[in-house]
């Protein structure tokens, strides 16, 4: 075995492996690295039906964070949704509103944030006050039937 060839082929394998990793980063994942710093925010909802950890948090259709945990707030007995917003999204105003939305008719639940108008910004640990709960299909159908009966 020629020593030069040995070193060359091992070097080539190392380069190929690292290049493959770089390609996986750029071409396959599109360079998206979500976990580069984030800050916690929470919101209280009347009903969090179907929302779970790892659900997306979006604004204007762009993902800006993810849900960490969903639980009951013992004081208000409402659903407390804790989220992490990416560090670079540092311009959400304090009066932003959050709503639980559904992708398509039966798709996954996610949190949509709509920016407010105040100058004060939302910081780590703040609570979003203005919330709108999940649309629950059963309740909708129930209301529709009641309305129908009234006529």
């Amino acid at each position, binding site marked *: 075995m020629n020593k030069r060839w*040995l070193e060359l082929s091992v070097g080539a*394998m190392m380069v190929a492996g690292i290049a*493959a990793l770089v390609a996986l*980063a750029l071409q396959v994942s599109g360079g998206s690295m*979500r976990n580069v710093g984030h800050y916690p925010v929470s919101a209280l909802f009347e009903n969090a039906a179907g929302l779970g950890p790892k659900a997306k948090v979006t604004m204007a259709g762009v993902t800006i964070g993810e849900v960490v945990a969903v639980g009951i707030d013992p004081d208000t007995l409402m659903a407390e949704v804790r989220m992490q917003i990416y560090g670079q999204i540092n311009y959400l105003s304090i009066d932003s509103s959050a709503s639980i939305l559904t992708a398509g008719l039966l798709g996954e639940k996610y949190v949509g944030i709509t920016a407010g108008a105040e100058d004060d910004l939302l910081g780590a640990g703040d609570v979003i006050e203005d919330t709108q709960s999940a649309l629950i299909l059963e309740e909708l159908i129930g209301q529709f039937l009641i309305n129908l009966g009234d006529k």
Partner: protein
Amino acid sequence: MLRFVVDCIANLGAVLLHKLVQMGQALLMLLQATTVQPKASSLTRLIQQLYVVGVQSLIIILVSALFIGMVLGLQGFTLLSAYGSEQAVGQMVALTLVRELAPVVAALLFAGRAGSALTAEIGLMKATEQLASLEMFGIDPLHRIVAPRFWAGIISLPLLVAIFSLVGIYGGHLVAVEWLGVYSGSYWGNMQQAVDFNEDVLNGMLKALVFAFLISWIALYQGYSCLPTSQGISAATTRTVVYSSLAILGFDFILTALMFGGAV
């Protein structure tokens, strides 16, 4: 009857103790082999082993990756086109490969190709008294023989897994885009939206690292502790492949549950 039950329990205990002793020995071997100050000549030996363990496994990795990617592209297309969403084939191929198939299949192939060869080589060195003869020259065979092979395994497999993923994704591209006519933009676009570098790619690499550790450890211990006869070596080689495969699949489940398990 009672005697039989007692015997069974005693046997079970004996087997368990024996396995525990073996685990302890294997751990000691690894500790002794890896806690050593590298010398200038260590690099040459590492390169030599990287060639044997890594470069010589490249062909089988490349060919399998290409075919697995092509099969995924074909299956994904057939399945998804029933729902009219064949554009999602890119993300399906990429996620399947990056998270699961690349680390697991590459590791299984690696265990069969490189792991068994390591066991056989070290077993033969033991049988032909080469290890004893190193010891007589005042050289610890754990440092000289075991350590470079261990590190070569640890370095090679993650690289091979990265190559496997990429080649597989291009294999899927070949079938889905070139042959079946999925729009290339949606193949890559959907993929880039779905795949996260930290969560998917790096977790896949972490799996590869864990598997590399398991395979190298099992293969080297089996070789080092085998009976120095032809039956002993062949039994040890078989054990390497069986134990490595089981360890890979078992640990894959545990790691997947920890990484992607989500709501716990």
